[in-house]
């Protein structure tokens, strides 16, 4: 089981769209996916039409295997379940490590329903906190959407600094360019500069700024499920394949 976090220390960069579409694409490929909506705004749950559970707000939640597994909801798509969480995260690291420990009750409880999850995808809230640090340690990879603008460039550098400061493995980071507008010279220039500065760190695939992605709010479904053959759909398709390849490699 691999844990992939989707994280950005800046809002409005397409983080939830990334989580939702990545989860959907991997599930479609036949792997079992659990998407954990850790963002207090609960947006990825919204896209899958799953109502956030009111009972899950207290922190005892992560200690309680039964409450955790009961909160999981099947999405309308095969192989894709949602944990519509909306909670405090004091014990989140404990929870993540239990998820990986094959002898833990949590792991067994997760397995009981339909076989093991192959990928657990975490849609993280947008701030650097104790939670984030725990996530960075437990996750196998951290997918980071970056809009190619000067402001995003700065927040990305802050994230790198945080990693160095806390002796976290930078190689876990999978930054990629999000909401890219090819017509804007600022975007192309920024992308060029960052790719040059951080050799091989950024993913090759990029996600464009597209109305089809914005329409997710109306469709309440992953882009790939309604616009799979269009530009945005094709971009997400390339994107998940690259992520899966990276996941197979050790850091």
């Amino acid at each position, binding site marked *: 089981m691999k844990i992939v976090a989707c994280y950005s220390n800046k809002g409005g960069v397409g983080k939830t769209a990334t989580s939702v579409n990545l989860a959907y694409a991997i599930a479609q490929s036949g792997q079992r996916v659990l998407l954990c909506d850790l963002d207090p705004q609960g947006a990825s749950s919204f896209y899958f039409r*799953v109502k956030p559970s009111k009972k899950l707000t207290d922190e005892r939640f992560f200690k309680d295997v039964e409450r955790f597994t*009961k909160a*999981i*909801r*099947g*999405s309308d798509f095969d192989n894709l*379940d949602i944990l519509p969480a909306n909670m405090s995260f004091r014990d989140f690291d404990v929870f993540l490590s239990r998820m990986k420990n094959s002898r833990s009750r949590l792991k067994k409880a997760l397995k009981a329903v339909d076989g093991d999850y192959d990928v657990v995808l975490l849609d993280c809230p947008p701030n650097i906190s104790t939670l984030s640090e725990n996530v960075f340690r437990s996750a196998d990879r951290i997918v980071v959407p970056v809009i190619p603008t000067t402001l995003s460039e700065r927040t990305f550098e802050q994230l790198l600094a945080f990693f160095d400061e806390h002796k976290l493995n930078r190689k876990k980071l999978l930054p990629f360019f999000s909401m890219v507008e090819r017509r804007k010279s600022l975007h192309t220039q920024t992308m060029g500069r960052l790719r040059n500065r951080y050799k091989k760190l950024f993913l090759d695939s990029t996600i464009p700024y597209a109305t089809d992605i914005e329409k997710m709010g109306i469709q309440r479904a992953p882009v790939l499920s309604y616009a799979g053959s269009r530009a945005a759909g094709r971009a997400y398709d390339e994107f998940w394949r690259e992520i899966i390849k990276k996941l197979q490699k050790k850091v």
Partner: protein
Amino acid sequence: MFLVRGPIDRQMFGKPGGKLVPVWHEDDSEERYVLLDCFDQSIRRSGAVLIEAAGQLTLIGRDGRTVVQPATRTGNFVGDLEPGPVRRALGMVPELRSLLEIGTGKFRQSRLALIDGEQKTHARARFLTLRPETASSVSEEAEITLASVQGLRGYDKAYRALRKKLGAEVKDDGVASALYGGPVAYIAKPDIKMTGDEPAFQAASDIISAYITVARQNEPGIIADYDTEFLHDYRVALRKIRSVLSLFKGVYGDAETEMLKSEFSELMVPTGRMRDLDVYLLDQDHYFEMLPETLHSGLTKMFDLFSKERQAGLRAFTRRLRSSGYNKKILVLAARFADRDTLDPGPNAKLHATDYACALIWKRYRKVCKIASGIDDQTEDEEVHELRIHCKKLRYLMEFFAPLFPSGEIKGLIKPLKRLQDNLGLFNDYSVQQISLQAFLEDHPTSRSKDNLAIAQSIGALTAALHQRQLDERAKVVSNFTQFDSPEVRKKFRSLFHKKGK
């Protein structure tokens, strides 16, 4: 998997005021399906159903579990199907039985989703509706629907509610009995009702009458040449009739018995060579394995000739089965054994069936033991053949009269007998095959052509191999009889068939 008989009432899935709304989705239009099974309906008897529709084979098991695979195949035997889950699950179909079209009908598929106010699905169901076409009409009453419910994690309530609405889950052979209608039409070994109090004349005539029906049921399949089992079953049925005539001594008058025996023998005559050829052809791979590759070309030529001979034989036999002469003859025989007024009863006709059965079986059993006890490794083959024939007769008698004895008892005795019979059967087959290969050689003299020379070489080697096999089987006879001749078996035979005071 749920089974619903008759049309589905869609109203029941979403009552007004309920929280969840039912959304129906129809998959394509109605399509034709074909119900497949072999002639003896092995699939149905196992409680399963095999359907071909829209390029797919769907096997619905006794428990409703369904497997699907592409319908593409090279022939209609299970071995001709592509490797896949359906083929793997069709173990109940005999290897030599061809799949046939047993029935047809229309099917359609639909899906149901129960969704909430956020348009989120809480539970789903798939429906496969099958409407069998009967000769008389396509009635909605005969329609059945198979439903499978899919729950989504965390929405147990909707899942449970949906299952509850669908009612009973498929069990036993619910699907099969719904789709086939009527009892299994063909049974190679029919259960013949016997009380034991009927006179021997009636018992014998009941058995013969039942097996005339069995033989006749195989005629269309022989003509269509679906598989070799039709001819085989036809022959077995006639052979059983002949056994009754020769084993049930004195039930019919002597002259009557002789005449009937010759009439049934005559029916069988043209089938003998064809059956031999079937056996050779079915065993082809085996023969090729027996010989080194250098001798394969002769075998190939020989099998080509066999296959041509079989085709010609089948054409001739088909003509015969369709001829008015044959049909008249068998109809007359069937009518005589149904009415029985014209049958001449013999001195034993009025004997009590059970007493008669016990006497016959006991006598035959003693005979088998007597011959077998005299057999050792030095005994002439003739004696071994003799033993084989008596074992066969004993087996037939036990099977004919099985309904008169506690079920299970006869089976328990047949099992060790069968082992001995299999051994003796192989011994006989290898011996007969050597003789018939020699005869074949004499019909194709080596001087005539180069092909015949190759055939002769192969037959020579084959005969040697068969002879060795015959010796191997011969060596097992004594030990197999010793196993059959155990104290328990002896005791059982005595207690069942030789009760004191009878």
